[in-house]
């Protein structure tokens, strides 16, 4: 035995939490053993295809199956085949599974076909002729507000939220300066590696078994109950290995799962629907485009006095999640700052574009992008340093948010800003960059050659954001998540939750939290597949809630289980072997052991849905980014040189995975800031390929230095808060600020493509 192994052997039940243990599912993914949905071979399977609208709005006049086509073996289903309600159940329940007599967006599903040969299924899809009488379509937020056509209610507004605190007029009269601005951000595609894919089978007992690439098994489960008028016990939904989600597999799998199930219901055969990239980009949900108009009051010394924030988000053709995306966006609109007087008015409008939905950040990146850009304008107007303005106004313990939430603990706003300022050597670096830019300008004026003839300028920008972990308002109370743990026959503990591994490391994190409480190594703990037939409803895998909320319940289950077994053994349990031994004795003597824990609202957290006041979230995570860019003044290209970020997430249960979330989210934010733009033609996406909807490649990724700041939250497991979405909020405004530092021009719309920056520089006379 080597000395090293001997040393490991003497460590008794090493602590799991805070240690980067091996990923539970990592080996399977790396070796190719992991089976994604399309890898599953099911005898007798049919391949489903979706016939969609090619116009953004219209009346369906006629659907014809081409008589010249050989329809043998083709299963065809439309809305009349739906046994239950023609609805994809979510919140407002306004989206049909299949269009009936009108279409409200391009790519809206109208009819389904399936065949055992995928080529024939595709041919059948093309042999369906849909005649639609086009109606005037509303394609932009401006058209919606101008009521160019009425597509929802009498004002095209799905939802309006007003959050107000203090006295706005007084705040503006206290101000020495009032700064106005308007900021825009567009659609963004989640672009998970694995496209959407679902497989449905009719079961012998007259129910449905649906598997797929998804985030929220119980969302699909409940949607299927409604569509097929089935009791809960007749539906089973299982998450297969999932290649990424980013919110894109939060609600849409209910649609695809419903389609596959309908074809399976009608044919009696298993049906697989696997989208290709083009269909996935064209038809499924995107980040909501947003237009934000801000008016802010500030005193000469940099004290913020008033914020009037008007937000409009494009919800697309059906309400789906727009109300809650809008809500999170509005609640985060004022950022992690003290604003004594605030008014936030937020409207989600209807357009004839595919419904926008969940995407990492869920509305908060859009509003904080606008606010952070505005903070830089305020700083510029005051002649104040951007870090100093933020530091002066950043929230601390005891401060109050626009909804009236008193921040009682774990407030890391100033710490993350200080860390980023220190690590980026903010003031010195800014001065050095300004000197170099000035020198380059002088050299160019005197026709001396620098930078190989390229007119390059550098810039350094900063941002400060926060992100509430868990469902908004009373959401967690309503969800009432339930987690369970029981014992396998060989004495291994098994975690039973509905939360999904979508690449972020959920299963590893659950194993660590359970292991820590059980005092066993993480690999000793087993995690049940998210299968509604065998796990309780611990809520969806969204909203940065999985570790903080569900992880907390898992840790409670584990603690309770250890206590039960120690009571039984009448002694402490020491390590995995001893645990298994005691557990087997327990099973033999007492039978099965199952521990359940349900979410309880932590004391002192109150929320009123009617007045929109109270504790919007149990706690917030905080992040700051300092981003250095290099702008080529001739081509207007922006290259991100370096990212420095500090993020207060309470506690990193698995530091490598947490840093991975931060790096990935940062890069996704950089793509949103600089590259990713959906282009439309008559209401349809035409850049629905990876050649023309472009995201950063590894060659575009800058060095990203991550510092995890741990200011513990008393109601999170080991102090943990959320980390999944926070990293998405910070990069875009820091990029815009860095470009402004480099060029002197503050753009107000992302992505900052070379074309857009060139126009902005021209308009500014540069």
């Amino acid at each position: 035995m080597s000395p090293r192994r001997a040393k490991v052997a003497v460590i008794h039940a090493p602590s799991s939490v805070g240690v980067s243990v091996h990923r539970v599912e990592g080996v399977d993914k790396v070796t190719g053993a992991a089976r994604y949905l399309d890898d599953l071979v099911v005898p007798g399977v049919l391949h489903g295809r979706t016939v969609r609208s090619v116009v953004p709005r219209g009346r369906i006049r006629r659907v014809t199956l081409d008589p010249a086509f050989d329809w043998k073996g083709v299963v065809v289903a439309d809305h009349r085949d739906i046994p239950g309600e023609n609805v994809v159940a979510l919140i407002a329940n306004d989206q049909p599974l299949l269009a009936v007599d009108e279409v409200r967006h391009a790519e809206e599903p109208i009819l389904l076909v399936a065949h055992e040969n995928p080529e024939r299924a595709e041919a059948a899809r093309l042999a369906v002729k849909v005649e639609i009488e086009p109606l005037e379509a509303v394609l932009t937020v401006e058209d919606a507000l101008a009521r160019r056509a009425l597509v929802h209610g009498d004002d095209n507004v799905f939802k309006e939220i007003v959050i107000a605190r203090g006295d706005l007029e007084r705040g503006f009269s206290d101000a020495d300066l009032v700064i106005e601005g308007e900021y825009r951000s567009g659609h963004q595609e989640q672009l998970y590696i694995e496209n959407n894919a679902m497989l449905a089978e009719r079961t012998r007992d007259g129910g449905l078994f649906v598997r797929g690439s998804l985030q929220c098994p119980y969302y699909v489960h409940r949607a299927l109950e409604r569509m097929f008028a089935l009791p809960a016990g007749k539906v089973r939904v299982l998450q297969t290995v999932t290649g990424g989600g980013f919110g894109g597999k939060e609600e849409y799998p209910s649609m695809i799962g419903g389609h596959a199930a309908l074809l399976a219901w009608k044919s009696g055969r298993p049906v697989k629907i696997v989208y290709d990239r083009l269909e996935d980009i064209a038809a499924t949900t995107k980040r909501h485009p947003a237009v934000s108009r801000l008016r802010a009051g500030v005193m000469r010394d940099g004290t913020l006095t008033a914020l009037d924030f008007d937000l409009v988000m494009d919800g697309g053709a059906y309400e789906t999640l727009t109300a809650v995306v809008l809500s999170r966006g509005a609640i985060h609109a004022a950022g992690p700052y003290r604003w004594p007087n605030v008014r936030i008015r937020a409207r989600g409008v209807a357009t004839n574009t595919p419904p926008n939905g969940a995407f990492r950040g869920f509305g908060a990146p859009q509003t904080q992008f606008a606010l952070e850009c505005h903070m830089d304008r305020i700083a510029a107007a005051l002649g104040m340093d951007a870090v100093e303005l933020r530091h002066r106004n950043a929230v601390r313990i005891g401060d109050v948010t626009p909804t009236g939430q008193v921040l009682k603990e774990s407030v890391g706003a100033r710490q993350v800003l200080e860390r980023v300022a220190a690590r980026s050597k903010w003031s010195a670096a800014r001065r050095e960059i300004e000197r170099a830019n000035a020198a380059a300008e002088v050299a160019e004026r005197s026709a001396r050659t620098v930078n190989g003839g390229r007119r390059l300028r550098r810039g350094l920008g900063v941002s400060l954001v926060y992100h509430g972990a868990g469902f908004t308002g009373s959401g967690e109370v309503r969800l009432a998540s339930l987690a369970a743990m029981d014992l396998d026959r060989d004495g291994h503990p098994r975690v039973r939750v509905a939360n999904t591994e979508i690449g972020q490391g959920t299963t590893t994190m659950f194993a660590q939290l359970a292991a820590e409480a059980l005092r066993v190594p993480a690999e000793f703990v087993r995690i049940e597949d998210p299968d509604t037939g065998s796990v309780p409803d611990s809520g969806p895998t969204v909203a940065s809630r999985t570790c903080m909320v569900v992880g907390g319940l898992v840790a409670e289950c584990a603690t309770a289980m250890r206590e039960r077994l120690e009571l039984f053994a009448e002694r402490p349990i020491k390590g995995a072997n001893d645990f298994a031994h005691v557990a087997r004795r327990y099973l033999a003597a007492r039978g099965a052991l199952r521990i359940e824990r349900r979410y309880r609202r932590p004391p002192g957290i109150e929320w009123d849905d009617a007045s929109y006041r109270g504790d919007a979230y149990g706690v917030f995570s905080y992040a700051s980014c300092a981003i250095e860019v290099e702008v080529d003044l001739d081509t207007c290209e922006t290259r991100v040189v370096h990212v420095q970020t500090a993020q207060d997430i309470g506690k990193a249960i698995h530091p490598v995975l947490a840093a991975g979330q931060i790096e990935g989210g940062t890069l996704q934010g950089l793509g949103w800031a600089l590259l990713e733009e959906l282009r439309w033609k008559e209401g349809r996406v035409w850049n629905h390929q990876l050649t023309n909807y472009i995201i950063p490649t590894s060659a575009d990724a800058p060095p990203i230095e991550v510092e995890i700041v741990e200011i513990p939250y008393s109601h999170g497991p080991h102090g943990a808060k959320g980390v999944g979405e926070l990293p998405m909020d910070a990069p875009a405004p820091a990029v815009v600020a860095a470009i402004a530092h480099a060029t002197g021009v503050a753009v107000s719309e992302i992505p900052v493509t070379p074309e857009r920056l060139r126009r902005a520089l021209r308009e500014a006379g540069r």
Partner: protein
Amino acid sequence: MLTLPAFEWLRPANLDDALAHLANHAAESLVVAGGTDAVPNLKHRLHEPRWIVHLGRLDELRFVRESEGALSIGPLVTLSAIARHEGIRRDFPSLARAASLVASPQIRNMGTLGGNLCLDTRCTYYNQTYFWRDALGFCLKKDGVRCHVVPQGRRCVAAHSSDVSPVLISLDASVDISNARGSRTVPVDEFFVGDGVHNNVLVPGELVTRVTIPAASRGLRAAYQKLRPRAAIDFPMLSVAFAARVSDGGCEHARLVVSALGAKPRRIGGLDALVKGRPLDDALGEALAEAAYRQCRPLTNVAYDDAYRHEMVPVFVRRAVREAGGIA
């Protein structure tokens, strides 16, 4: 998912077999080497051949040879092999550079010189699925009669997107073309035609069998500059190749090729009078940039703003001239 159409797969053992097949079935065949462009296009039903003729076994088309100063390259040599070939890097660095800027390492390992030279043109309205093209109305490059880029246009304006061809033109290279009956040699400058539907002079049954850079092109001051949105993967939004003969008395002659704007690379005219006797410096770069700007007119055939691409023409010409001149 997007599927490949059904086809028969042929792998001729030698060039004669390949040409014999093409002599009878060229219209129903698609010739494939690396397949990096052909496969996605097949999935979009831009080609619907009965036969795919894969050239992978034609080792006789895989060579880099020097003879009396001229450099001959077989069309099956991969782009990554060209990018790292010592002789090419030393003697024709702009070609090595162009090859190294194609797509990504994996694609360069599969993609070939001949494939990049004969790359299908690209257009917003063409590189789409069958269903999408059907819904909008087919365009004249494939299945239709009208052009969506230039509504009154009678000729396809899809963009030539090869990285190597502007460089080969700037180096005065030629291609050998064979069919079952014989072969001919065409300067690369005359290889392309201004019709995006089929933008080269190959007639059915012909294959490119060799690319030759003449001995006279040794010692040129040459450069290649490419504008693309990301540091990898993307086809050029604009590309510029430049090569000049420079002696003590200044420039003797020069070639400047601007591509990725229209169906064929544009060789900027009137250069000789402009460059003769002048040093390869920024002033000359400025003059060439101005000439190129006046002679180029980008269209909305790709996903990027045409005005922006037009403004970038002089920028990239200046850069190419600086690169060629070794101006730091």
